[in-house]
């Protein structure tokens, strides 16, 4: 849960980020008001200037938010257990491949097929994530190094598989998956004036709930948190530290793998060869960081970053460089990383009315 104090820094960071974005817009000679109008349009579909409403924009904004919430959960889960999973990107690609494989090769009736696709993606992403976990547990190899390297392996594995394993005709995409394997929803699409909105939000919401439940309410999460904060104490208490590292990376990878499936069977309907990583994993780090690694926080910051992504074309149509959105996103992350500095400033501002508590009571 986000406590009031815990939410203070991200909230201030977001305000400062938008202020900085507005400043940069003003420096380019455009009106910051246009930027906020574009953001409002992305969020609600309301176009103030034209006095019109188009529900396609909020639909697209949610489509952007869904996968980065999942990669945010992936990174956040690892963080909560003392690990840095920088490999969500690769786990996502492997999850997407597994989704394509089950979609193309395993025939099944409607709902069952989608469920199998999602579970396969989670299992594949989980296993991919468990590799750095196992290497860390067994040989004490740092998980950051291994998971970064595995991102490249996953990228090339993906591109090889799309062409040679799934027999891509155009060397770019696999054959289209059968409708039973997809999360497409003509109804949701129609409701949002033809956006790509799909049933993907169902696994995303379930994942958010599951994340909260596992971390905060289960003995499994308790053990993982203890290992994450103090490995020595966990060992002293009789916990299986090595097993816990592997398990944590598996769960972390599973969230990222699910993100891959949500993109592939929710938005595209086929597997894609890609020239380079698409940045979902790194967005996940930002989402987890700003969201304080809590389920509620990841949900909110996922919405925010999804909005910033979705608003880019709208800003461009207002004559505002779309890179402004990236500047805002980057500066929010920067300000959150300056947590201590912000807390210090807030403390100084408050020092007038409330005395600062001494750091430690006497021993």
């Amino acid at each position, binding site marked *: 849960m986000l406590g009031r104090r815990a939410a203070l820094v991200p909230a201030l960071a977001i305000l400062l980020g938008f202020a900085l974005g507005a400043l940069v817009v003003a420096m380019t000679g455009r009106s910051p008001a246009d930027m906020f109008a574009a953001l409002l349009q992305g969020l609600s579909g309301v176009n103030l200037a034209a006095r019109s409403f188009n529900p396609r924009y909020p639909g697209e904004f949610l489509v952007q938010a869904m996968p980065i919430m999942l990669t945010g959960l992936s990174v956040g889960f690892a963080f909560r257990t003392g690990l840095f999973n920088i490999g969500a990107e690769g786990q996502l690609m492997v999850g997407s491949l597994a989704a394509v494989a089950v979609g193309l090769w395993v025939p099944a009736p409607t709902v069952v097929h989608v469920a199998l696709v999602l579970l396969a993606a989670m299992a594949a992403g989980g296993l991919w994530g468990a590799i750095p976990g196992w290497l860390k547990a067994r040989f004490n190899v740092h998980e950051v190094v291994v998971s970064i390297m595995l991102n490249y392996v996953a990228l090339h594995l993906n591109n090889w598989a799309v062409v040679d394993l799934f027999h891509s005709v155009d060397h770019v995409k696999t054959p289209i998956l059968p409708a039973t394997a997809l999360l497409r929803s003509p109804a949701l699409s129609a409701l949002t004036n033809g956006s790509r909105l799909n049933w993907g939000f169902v696994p995303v919401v379930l994942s958010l709930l599951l994340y909260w439940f596992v971390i905060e309410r289960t003995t499994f999460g308790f053990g993982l948190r203890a290992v994450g904060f103090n490995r020595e104490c966990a060992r002293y208490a*009789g916990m*299986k530290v090595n097993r816990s590292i592997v398990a944590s990376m598996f769960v972390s990878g599973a969230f990222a793998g699910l993100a891959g499936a949500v993109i592939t069977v929710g938005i595209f309907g086929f597997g894609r060869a890609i020239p380079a990583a698409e940045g979902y994993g790194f967005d996940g780090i930002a989402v987890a960081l700003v969201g304080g690694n809590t389920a509620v926080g990841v949900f909110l910051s996922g919405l925010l970053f999804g909005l910033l992504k979705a608003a880019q074309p709208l800003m461009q149509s207002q004559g505002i460089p779309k890179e402004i959105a990236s500047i805002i996103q980057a500066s929010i992350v920067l300000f959150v990383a300056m947590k201590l500095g912000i807390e210090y400033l807030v403390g100084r501002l408050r020092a007038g009315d409330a005395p600062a508590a001494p750091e430690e009571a*006497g*021993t």
Partner: protein
Amino acid sequence: MLANDRVSLQVEQGSVHALLGENGAGKSTLMGVLFGLVPPDSGAIWVHGREVRIADPNDATALGIGMVHQHFKLVHNFTVTENIVLGREPTVGPTVDRRRAAERVRELSRAYGLAVDPEARIEDISVGMQQRVEILKMLYRDAEILIFDEPTAVLTPQEAQELLAIMRRLVAEGKTVVFITHKLREIKAVADTCTVLRRGRVVGTVPAATTSEAAMAEMMVGRVVSFHVDKAPARPGEVVLAVEHLHVRNPRGLVGVKDVSLEVRAGEVLGLCGIDGNGQAELVRGITGLSRVEAGRVLLKGRDVTALPVKERNALGLGHIPEDRHRHGLVLDMHLDENLVIHAYDRPPFSHAGILDFPAIRRHAARLIGDFDVRCGQGGATPTRSMSGGNQQKAVVAREIDRSPDVLVVVQPTRGLDVGAIEHIHRRILAERDRGKAILLVSLELEEILDLSDRVAVLCGGEVTGTVEAARTSENELGLLMSGAARKAS
């Protein structure tokens, strides 16, 4: 939190002024104010009759106030001399004048009888010598008022004796010493005056020479404290913990414990004493399963547990109060109530089918907090990191004693605790003994060993140099065994 409530303190030049108080009484906060680490909300400070403002440690140094912190602030890979002159190096042109620096350090060390090797690296010298380096740092900066924050907590009994002698010498040279402690014996030995703090308020200031230890303890705790541990004679039963020819290596790969054999019976306390670093840690790690055993066996209630992991040893009835509460005993970033179920969170009543039962966890915490007088701001929901060291220790002890394991390995259970808390924990340990539990007590405090133990085993150089009856031994005999100068078969 209000740590100091309208505290007034007057320290006379050329005296040793002790500051006595329980864990969390506000001693360290008060000294933090004097040294510019904690800004006061109200009040004033006078030095040599002049009102001063101390905003940071530089102001304090300029006023001639120096502080030896409980945890030393030294650069480990620098030499003694480099540490002492750091920030105020004598220079020749742009370079440090090492010769003059070393000369000045030698001068100071001679003048005050502070034996140090100016060329040694900090990481290579003993804790006692590191502390002398801290004192020299203050003297090098011309400190007139020297504050010692629980300086003997980290020292061996011999080093502590030496430190007290050094304090007297400093005072003889005209310096003023403020000595924060909760050890009454040391106050009697060295202090002229003693100010007692309780829960952030001054209870009184008394002359140390004419006030009895009992009276000071009563002022500090607010009730009569018994120093003598009353214990009934032990009624030892069967051997429940046996260590046979145990060999354990330490983390650096050296042999820490060589061929150690011990037996602890149900209903008795076996004290294990020795100078720090003579194999106690390795022995405990071998028994509790934290380190791999090279050779030999550990038997728990007759069962060979040498190859079993920690969890299974715990399940068979082994408990452990670890030496280092921060490293092993607690997860500081979790709440107090979570720490209190760190062994048992995965089974009823604290969880059912993998789901934590928070109401049960909170009830458990509330009971232990009350039973062991753990002082924490927000009850079970207190972040463990925000608690004072003494109260963290109480939490660990409470958790382990409450589990009431058949065999309890207790390492330094009262380190950093005040007399009131020590009395309580000693009583609880003996109560466990009287309920037929076996206790292996590892402590560096000889007094504690002699007070609680029924038998005492002495470790020296990783070997048992003797096992004696506690009632028929003396500190002197133990000292000889600890130094390896004597051996005694049980």
